[in-house]
């Protein structure tokens, strides 16, 4: 589904990714761990197509097609979803109406008819129930004034509505208390399937207690320095990253 081939990427002329390679197949869950400043968030932004991040060499191929110069909107419509570490607050834009716009944009891209507010409301209620979200969030402004945990839960709600093929979740576990982490993780698990894939970017093993990864990668200095199974995550939890970087 996704091939990242020796990607070098810079932001403001500072090279962050220095030869990142990763292959993700449909149905897989990959966890990317790594110390601060290793390039984890840059990886997610490069995949989502952030305009400030420039891929200077290498290639990202999604479903057999290069993402080179593909706009963020087009990537989203093709099925790439990024869950933000710090979801942006958008005052004045109603959460439910925004979600319906995004949902309909995807349907139009797929050649389907748009859904009206009434039908979408039913769909949204169902998704919110899974995430144990209070219905008042439908009428609240997008991420505006939400707590850290509420923002993260809202990111997963968006993911649930848009049903992406590939979701890259950037530190979705940060800011969540134990109960919220469990609920969000259960929500993510429900979205897993043989046709989609998940990249979890995280600092901590605790998220991986709930969402079992098929592969764990350690990112350091802008490239993957070690890959393994869930045991690797447990090892990192015990020993930190130093032993790998030496």
């Amino acid at each position: 589904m996704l091939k990242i081939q020796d990607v070098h990427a810079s932001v403001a002329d500072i090279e962050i990714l220095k030869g990142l390679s990763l292959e993700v197949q449909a149905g897989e869950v990959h966890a990317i761990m790594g110390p601060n400043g290793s390039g984890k968030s840059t990886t997610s932004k490069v995949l989502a197509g952030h305009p400030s991040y420039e891929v200077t060499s290498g290639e990202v191929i999604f479903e057999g097609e290069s993402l080179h110069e593909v706009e963020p909107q087009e990537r989203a419509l093709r099925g790439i979803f990024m869950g933000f570490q710090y979801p942006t607050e958008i005052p004045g834009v109603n959460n439910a109406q925004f979600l319906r716009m995004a949902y309909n944009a995807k349907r139009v891209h797929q050649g389907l008819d748009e859904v009206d507010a009434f039908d979408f409301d039913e769909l949204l209620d169902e998704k919110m129930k899974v995430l144990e979200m209070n219905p008042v969030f439908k009428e609240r402004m997008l991420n505006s004034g939400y707590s850290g945990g509420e923002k993260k839960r809202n990111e997963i709600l968006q993911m649930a509505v848009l049903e992406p093929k590939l979701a890259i979740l950037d530190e979705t576990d940060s800011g969540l208390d134990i109960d919220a982490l469990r609920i969000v993780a259960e929500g993510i698990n429900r979205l897993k399937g043989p046709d989609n894939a998940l990249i979890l970017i995280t600092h901590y093993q605790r998220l991986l207690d709930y969402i079992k990864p098929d592969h764990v990668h350690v990112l350091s200095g802008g490239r993957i320095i070690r890959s393994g199974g869930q045991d690797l995550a447990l090892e990192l939890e015990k020993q930190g990253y130093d032993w790998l970087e030496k």
Partner: protein
Amino acid sequence: MTLTLQESLSEAAKGLLSSVKAPEAKHELWRQVPIKRLRDLPLEAACLVEMPSLKEVQPTSKEEEVSEDLLVFQTGRLKENSSCAHVSIEAFSSVANTHEDILQQLSAQAKDDYYALNNLAHCPESYQLTIEPGRDPKRPIHLAFYNAHNNTTYQRIHIKVKSGVEAQLITSQHSLGEGGTVNMEVSVELEQGARLQYCDGQFSDAKLIRLGGLSVRQKRDSFFKYMQLSGQSLCLRQRLLVDLLEENAEVELIGCAYLAESSSLNHVLDINHHVPNCRSRQLFKNILSAEARSSFDGTIYVEKNAGGTSAAQLNNNLLLSSTARAHTKPRMKIYASDVECNHGATVGQLEEEEIFYLETRGLSQEVSMNLLAWGFMREVIDECPMEAFREQWAQDTLNAALSLKEIL
């Protein structure tokens, strides 16, 4: 022969006009106004024009909402037999000139203002609307002004809200044909404990020139809220003057405008706190695209004896193009101690991170930007309690400009 009040006002204004010249760009309060667009304005009043059916005038009201009372003005004149429950309407031409106080007050207000004097001199008819006790406070009085597209349509309305009365008022401007010039003066007088919410709707008309002013005088415990919703126009220049004359009076002035192409919007505001313990708030938000221009020149005066004043002033401008310009000058002149006053202004563009966030959800850059612009404006739009009118304006003006299918 005794002159009517209308004739006396006209005579007085014509006398004053002999010594007042049209403003020039070098004058401080006109510096940001596109004076060239005003240079060849016709000063004579427009003739009566044909009207569309009233059905086309009435905004779509939601079924559950209380409908409104409509008064239609045809090039400045109230259509015959128009009436409205608990509102007495008096035309100045039917009043003998025994109102020396009105004459002096209006002449004084307009004395240095070329366009206000022209309004006094040429307006075919001035009206006093007195809102009496007994009105349903949630049923708006809608004054719909139909204007000629040639010459100048002069409008002059004095609204008096009786003691303890609560009311809602809407004014809307409609050009019969494209463009034209509207010169509108509104004065509001709130007696003790009176409450008025006034929504001034200006729908987009790229060729319209609108000049004028709103002056407000408030007595004890009164409340006045003014909301101006503006679309694009060739030039919209407005003076807002509020005098808080007795204690515990409160005023809120709110404005939002979407300015496209080479639209120009200029506000000059003076809020005068003459007495202690009054409150004022101003919030003006503009979106400017293409070559649009705006200016905001607002001053809050707090007199020496006006302790306990609370005043806030904010002007935010969102520029959607690199060629749009916004000038803002929020000012305070405070001569009293023990006051709570704050003011601020911003001129900015959309945040790249916000656009990116929306794009990652499958929205195009254009839709993302338009959605963010809508979000920027929403705070102000939501302030308008007249929901049917507010939605009509948002749909016709803002959504049309932002290519959004529905009101968010």
